[in-house]
């Protein structure tokens, strides 16, 4: 049905209801650039983030962290800390001995370690004191007796290890007979891979390594807990009688709400989670962290509000960033450039805890097939625990690493069959309204337009393989989800919801459960409400980030917010619009469909003398129907996924597509790479606000650039200092790109008008990151003929490959398609 409808240019506006897709001129606000609703507050310093909040009587907390990467805790003596003047409470793991985890099947961490520490930085105790300095002094007085254990710093040694009494696995085995260092194994095969590759005219096989990277949002994690005991109840007899409020810089208030209840053994109805504005997240704030449990518990222990603000160093150790991936790809193609099979083996270095790792392991393979038509595909992925900070989701969760490897593979194959890399990609294009080899349902697909857009903008045809030695161009493509059809914990409820109220002043209040992390979701619902209800944008107020007031949205992750929240908002607003149209139609004696709400007025579609201010229209509707309010929901399709174990993972209501061209200069004498420019074309379905979409595209390309050239979340080994210690836990030493490092970025929006997205919109926040890295790698090859199979493309790593190429005599401009010896 959806396939047919797409052909007819139909979009689904509600379950079972289809209409013709609107064109740009049909909208008043959608598709045009507007200010963000919280923009003024952010530019004047009025915007409130968690650490900007001070509550009366507030205490400050700090967390004591393990100096060992792997050790048993024999005992903890907190008596000297408790005796320090100004200290109000000290807690340890024994005060919250309940395991939690963002994925319901893999709870493996405690708010504070109970009997084992698993990385340098693991929390073991927490203090609340009158000020931060006192709390820091108190930490120094806590005595922890550790029994140090051998640590596993690489996934290979973790995989090969056989446990003994002196050298246990990092966790108990997840399955009977398993190595306890294994978090998850996934082996999936689609089609006849060995036959496909066996019959290929050319086969490329290579090893790739993607070093881990961290999110480094500029706002460090921060949380405040406030416990208010119920009046008239003896806390000794009923310690759970009270109400807990937690403010947190989180991107998943709903999951935090659930996990707080579980760990603290409180009824969810007694907990309120508030999300102030979040100063960047990128996946780094998408699960509960120790500080949120600690502020809650310390507040319950003291009866006073408690704040904890991570230091920048703690942010690096909290991590949950991109996993290091060790990857081997074997890919076959025919002489005419058609892929015949893809075989991938991947080792994921997970760090000390599972985090989102179960999903990451699936994503390492499940998200690769589109935008290409792979006839056969197999991936074999294993995630290992290691004694380092846990890895998790970072922008482009689990799929940025394989995309790097695969798009470099495609570049090598294109050269092997003597085709331009654009042409090679076009020949393997998946198409729209189809399924990938692993049965992901793909509807709208603007990938060809993305390719065309960057090819033209970069003047590719005239410059690829023709620039002087040292300068090069590279292309790469990608695909990403617009949310996931299945939520993290199985349930049948909507994934997103919005409530709208209209008051007699003509103002529209939108209550949104979504997480504003800078991407503009508050603005998106404001634009939609104003579009649907015909009020000026400035008459829409958005209330968000309060589990007491707003309906549940699952959070800002998986690029799900615009698609799901947008649809929920259209659902709520269109219900209200219908009531207002009906009331005005009754007044005018016309059909409801003839009443148009726009520009602060209700007007008749054809009779120009029929018009009233929107406020009067709202009054008519309130008189007819009672107080004006509506809820709207969105839930994902649950009937479109592969019928195999894991077939639901990667299933999304829509997929975005991206293509990049990068232009680089490479200095063959130093290995220094300068990225001059990145052209990024992205199919976002429809740009609800082009300025915000461009911002996501530019920010994504920038972040991928940083990972390509500079960033490494790496740890010392015993030969280079204290094993397991972060190599550079500061923004200066970790090195994220400054304004001087960042290349020129050109964002080229492609709109495929998705049949199920809000007004046709899909995601734009994560997809546009993926091709940055392989496009740069492929550009380095075009510049000097050197392949970069490992990240980052830092001077030492590039220099090493240059030296190899020099010795092999291959340091030169590669031959252009059609010029190479066949």
């Amino acid at each position, binding site marked *: 049905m959806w396939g047919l409808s797409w052909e007819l240019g139909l979009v689904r506006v509600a379950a079972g209801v289809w209409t013709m897709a609107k064109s740009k001129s049909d909208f008043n606000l959608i598709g045009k650039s507007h*200010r*963000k609703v*919280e*923009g*003024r*507050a*952010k*530019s*004047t*310093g*009025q915007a*409130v*983030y968690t*650490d*900007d909040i*001070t509550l009366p009587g507030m205490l400050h907390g700090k967390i004591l962290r393990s100096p060992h990467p792997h050790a048993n805790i024999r005992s903890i003596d907190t008596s000297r800390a408790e005796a*320090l*003047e*100004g200290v109000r409470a000290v807690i340890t793991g024994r005060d919250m001995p309940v395991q939690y985890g963002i994925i319901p099947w893999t709870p493996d961490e405690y708010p504070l370690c109970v009997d084992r520490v698993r990385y340098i930085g693991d929390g073991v105790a927490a203090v609340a004191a*009158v*000020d931060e300095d*006192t709390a820091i*002094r108190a930490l120094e007085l806590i005595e922890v007796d550790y029994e140090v254990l051998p640590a596993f710093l690489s996934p290979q040694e973790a995989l090969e290890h056989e446990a003994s009494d002196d050298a246990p696995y990092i966790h108990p085995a997840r399955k009977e007979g398993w190595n306890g260092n294994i978090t998850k194994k996934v082996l999936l095969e689609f089609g006849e891979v060995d036959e496909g590759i066996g019959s290929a005219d050319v086969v490329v096989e290579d090893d790739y390594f993607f070093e881990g990277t961290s999110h*480094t*949002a*500029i*706002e*460090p994690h921060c949380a405040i807990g406030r416990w208010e005991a119920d009046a008239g109840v003896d806390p000794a007899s009923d310690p759970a009688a009270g109400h807990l409020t937690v403010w947190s810089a989180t991107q998943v208030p709903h999951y935090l709400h659930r996990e707080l209840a579980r760990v603290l053994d409180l009824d969810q109805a007694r907990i309120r989670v508030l999300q102030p*504005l*979040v*100063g*960047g*997240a*990128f996946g780094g704030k998408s699960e509960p962290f120790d500080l949120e449990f600690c502020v809650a518990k310390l507040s319950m222990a003291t009866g006073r509000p408690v704040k904890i*603000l991570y*230091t*920048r160093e703690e942010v690096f150790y909290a991590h949950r960033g991109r996993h290091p991936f060790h990857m081997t790809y074997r890919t076959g193609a025919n002489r005419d450039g058609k892929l015949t099979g893809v075989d991938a083996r991947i080792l994921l270095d997970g760090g000390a805890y599972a985090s989102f790792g179960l999903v990451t392991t699936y994503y390492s393979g499940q998200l690769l097939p589109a935008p290409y038509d792979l006839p056969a595909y197999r991936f074999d992925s294993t995630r290992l625990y290691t004694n380092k900070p846990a890895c998790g989701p970072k922008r482009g969760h689990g799929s940025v690493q394989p995309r790097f490897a695969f798009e470099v593979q495609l570049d090598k194959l294109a050269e092997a069959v003597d085709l331009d890399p654009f042409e090679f990609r076009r020949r393997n294009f998946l198409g729209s309204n189809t399924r990938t080899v692993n049965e992901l349902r793909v509807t709208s697909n603007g990938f060809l337009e993305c390719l065309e857009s960057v090819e033209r903008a970069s003047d590719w045809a005239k410059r690829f393989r023709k620039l002087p030695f040292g300068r090069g161009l590279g292309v790469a493509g990608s695909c990403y989800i617009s949310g996931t059809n299945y939520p993290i914990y199985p349930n049948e409820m909507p994934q997103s919801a919005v409530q709208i109220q209209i008051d007699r002043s003509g103002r529209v209040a939108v209550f949104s459960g979504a997480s504003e*992390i*800078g*991407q503009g979701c508050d603005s998106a619902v404001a634009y939609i409400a104003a579009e649907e209800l015909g009020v000026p944008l400035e008459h829409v107020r958005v209330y968000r980030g309060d589990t007491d007031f707003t309906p549940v949205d699952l959070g800002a992750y998986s690029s799900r917010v615009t698609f799901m929240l947008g649809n929920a908002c259209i659902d709520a607003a269109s219900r209200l619009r219908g009531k207002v149209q009906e009331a005005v139609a009754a007044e005018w004696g016309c059909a409801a469909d003839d009443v148009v709400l726009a520009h602060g007025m209700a007007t008749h579609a054809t009779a120009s003398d029929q018009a009233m201010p929107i406020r009067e229209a709202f009054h008519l509707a309130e008189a007819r129907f009672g107080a004006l309010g509506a809820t709207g929901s969105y839930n994902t399709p649950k009937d479109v996924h592969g019928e195999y174990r894991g077939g639901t993972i990667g299933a999304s209501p829509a997929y975005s597509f991206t293509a990049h061209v990068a232009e680089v200069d490479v200095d063959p004498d130093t290995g220094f790479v300068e990225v001059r420019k990145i052209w990024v074309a992205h199919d976002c379905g429809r740009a609800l606000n082009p*300025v915000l979409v*461009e*911002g996501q595209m*530019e*920010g*994504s*390309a*920038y*972040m991928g650039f940083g990972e390509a050239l500079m960033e490494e979340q790496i740890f010392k080994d015993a030969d280079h200092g204290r094993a397991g210690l972060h190599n550079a836990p*500061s*923004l*200066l030493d970790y090195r*994220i790109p*400054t*304004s*001087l490092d*960042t290349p*020129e*970025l050109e*964002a080229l929006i492609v709109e495929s008008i998705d049949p199920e997205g809000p007004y046709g919109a899909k995601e734009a926040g994560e997809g546009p990151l993926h091709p940055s890295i392989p496009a740069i790698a492929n550009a380095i090859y075009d510049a000097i003929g050197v392949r970069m199979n490992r990240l980052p493309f830092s001077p030492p790593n590039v220099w090493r490959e240059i030296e190899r190429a020099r010795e092999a005599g291959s340091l030169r401009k590669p031959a252009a398609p059609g010029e190479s010896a066949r």
Partner: protein
Amino acid sequence: MPAETRVARLVVNGDTREVGVPEHFTLLEALRYVLGLTGSKQGCDKGDCGACTVLVDGQPILACLTPVWEAEGKEILTVEGLARDGVPHPLQDHFDRLGAAQCGFCTPGILCSAAALLADSPAPSREEIREALSGNLCRCTGYAKIYDAVEAAASELAGGADGA
């Protein structure tokens, strides 16, 4: 165990304030946690990110590395003081209009650095803007929209079309 405190006389956004602050406090701590001027942000507390940038006698400085006593007797300008009589500085307006602030956490520091640049160099080239903002890390935007906004503000201050 309260720390030694001193009375500091600070001139912030035109207001003279006398406040008791612990001897070791930085200007950023005094602004945020004593004066309640939370617009200036702490992103690293070690001078790496620039989110704490404020102007002292017109010069952009890192408030997280400045002992509070060093700022005494000088004119301190924070993001809260950029607007005049309730009218946003053109930089603030164009940052808002052109999408130069996403999460907004680096924005106050960048606005202060940019304001100092425009005071010195009313029509900066893009290279000058990149140089002037190189001490302020932004993790959201890739800087492109920030340059657009600074250029639009410069143009408006010079009396040209603001492009609005």
